[in-house]
């Protein structure tokens, strides 16, 4: 033994200011229990303002939280009856920026014509950047909780049907109705709904407007009541290409259990070292100022093992800050970029960098090192930037979050995050609305970069992000 070291440590160990109060501990324990009684524990990922201190929380929960799955139910009779929509497999999110096109007027089904003769159901297509979204609209009102987006998931062009089927229920005056909507690829000639009981129902397909240049066709159809059904895609010869299970009211419990089991499996699997290295690389690149949507940035593309380390691939781009002209490409590619990551005992280190960057950025990246973290699945803030907006008080804010878990994640493994912007002195400027995210299921989407505009008289200094994961985080 080394008595000097032992005695040094015991002498150097700090003593508490005062003895612990058991009542304080009991209160904290109850607070942990209360926050975990719901579906999630809020975790603030980063704040750090001198003088204000850390806005970290080990169990803080926002009031009236709605987590991830868009199950907020709204009912009620209004002077002009409007149907309410509860999403079962769709997602309650805002559509991406981009042009909106009407694809189909009037959703097919006998009941519709009788109930809402003077109104029209429309299926809208949002051709956004990197994703296509379909949204139902009643009259001229898009229904927020009926939005479904592809976001780079299974490509219907490859599979025919993909994971595009969304099922919605609505109610008005106590009457419930069901409809299904989604996309199909060019191989699909016919679409059928085959319920567990009853006859198959043919679902019409509608092409997107030619000027959109979207290769999919869309469908939105009412359905007879069912517990379990399949949406079946057929080719020209009537051969089945693919089928997707659609859960009606009778099998929601089974679906929830299946989803919970899938999430449990995902949570139990250790996080790959490559996933951790990718997060480290994103953090290094963000720290060097290269995740900036207002200038030059490196857009994450993937990671692969090389030798005893990893090569993290990016696409270097030069981005134009807002405002944007219609049709203007915001970011122009400059070429490939790479970050080389090695492991030194329990540290990730940067062993090299190649691509468009300044000398200072290169130096900042080469100095990057971080302890290999324990397994966790969640969003980590890796970069933010500010740029002047269109008016004296307007600021554009961009920030980048990286997913720290493995990908792919289960389809229902989403989360909700919110952004706070602080002035340089630490004063809170604004707290943004919930921004629901899906955990990425493709390599390129490990890093989520978002932009918003705020108005303030203060000069923004820092961004803080809080997120609610879909399941309780392990400690």
């Amino acid at each position, binding site marked *: *033994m080394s008595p*000097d070291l032992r005695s040094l*440590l015991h*002498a150097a160990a700090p*003593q*508490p200011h005062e003895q612990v109060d*058991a009542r304080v501990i009991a209160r904290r324990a109850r607070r942990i229990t209360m926050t975990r009684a719901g579906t999630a524990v809020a975790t603030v990922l980063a704040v750090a303002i001198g003088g204000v201190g850390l806005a970290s929380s080990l169990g803080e929960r926002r009031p009236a939280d709605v987590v991830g799955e868009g199950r907020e139910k709204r009912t009620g009779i209004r002077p002009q009856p409007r149907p309410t929509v509860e999403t079962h497999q769709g997602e309650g999110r805002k559509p991406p920026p981009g042009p909106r096109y009407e694809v189909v007027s009037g959703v097919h089904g006998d009941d519709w014509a009788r109930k809402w003769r003077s109104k029209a159901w429309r299926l809208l297509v949002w051709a956004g950047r990197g994703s296509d979204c379909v949204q139902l609209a009643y009259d001229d009102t898009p229904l927020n909780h009926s939005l479904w987006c592809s976001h780079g998931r299974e490509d219907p062009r490859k599979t025919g049907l993909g994971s595009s089927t969304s099922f919605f229920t609505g109610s008005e005056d106590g009457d419930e109705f069901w409809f299904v909507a989604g996309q199909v690829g060019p191989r699909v000639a016919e679409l059928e709904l085959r319920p567990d009981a009853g006859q198959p129902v043919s679902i019409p397909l509608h092409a997107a407007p030619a000027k959109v240049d979207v290769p999919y066709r869309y469908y939105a159809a009412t359905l007879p009541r069912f517990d379990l059904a399949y949406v079946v895609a057929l080719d020209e010869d009537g051969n089945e290409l693919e089928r997707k299970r659609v859960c009606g009211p009778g099998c929601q419990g089974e679906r929830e259990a299946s989803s919970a089991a899938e999430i449990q499996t995902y949570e139990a699997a250790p996080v790959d070292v490559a996933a951790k290295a990718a997060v480290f690389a994103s953090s290094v690149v963000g*720290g060097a*100022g290269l995740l900036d949507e207002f200038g030059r940035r490196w857009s994450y593309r993937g990671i692969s093992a090389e030798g005893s380390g990893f090569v993290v691939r990016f696409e270097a781009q030069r981005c134009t800050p807002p405002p944007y002209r219609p049709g203007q490409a915001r970011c122009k590619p400059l070429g490939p970029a790479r970050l080389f990551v090695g492991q030194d005992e329990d540290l990730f280190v940067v062993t090299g960098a190649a691509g468009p960057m300044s000398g200072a950025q290169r130096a900042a990246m080469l100095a990057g090192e971080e302890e290999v973290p324990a397994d966790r699945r969640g969003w980590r803030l890796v970069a933010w930037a500010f740029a002047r907006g269109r008016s004296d008080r307007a600021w554009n804010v961009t920030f980048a979050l990286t997913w720290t878990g493995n990908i792919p994640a289960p389809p229902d493994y989403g989360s909700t995050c919110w952004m706070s912007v602080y002035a340089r002195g630490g004063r809170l400027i604004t707290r943004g609305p919930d921004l629901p995210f899906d955990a990425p299921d493709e390599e390129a989407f490990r890093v989520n970069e978002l932009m918003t505009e705020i108005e303030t008289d203060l000069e923004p200094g*820092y961004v803080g992000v809080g997120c609610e994961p879909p399941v309780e985080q392990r400690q």
Partner: protein
Amino acid sequence: MTDPGLVDFCKAQYPRLVGLLGLYCGDRGVAEELAQETLARVWRKWPKVHHLDRPDAWAQRVAINLANSHLRRRVAERKARTRIVPPRHAELPAVDVAITVRQAVAALPRRQREAVLFHYYLDLPLTEVAESMGTTVSGAKSLLHRAVGRLRSGGYVTDPKEVVDVT
């Protein structure tokens, strides 16, 4: 009604946890906060924890985990601050030996820091250190050798023949 054994456990463990976390994180204020959070978790899980052979070891493991989470957030925040705020001038070294020892320990790589504190501060034998850290006895010995070597190079270990007990 609260189990009096739980209250006694918390009172006995709190100073020990503050000492452990203070050495681990290099900051007494943070140590007190994390120690309280650790005991809150003990409080919540006491029906199970008090049946364990070593509830104190469980609490120590929880404390280290919380400290690691805290330090990870601080690393991200420090890097974020550096992006926006110019780095300050290097601070003068502290005169107080206790503070410099804490800083030296806190500067060790995480695994080495854990091994040093488990063995030299908590007086755990190597077998328990290895078990707590999820490694082998030889792995724990290796970590201790390297940690002591680093501390020696900083002038904190004067015994030239550092011997690590196998018990």
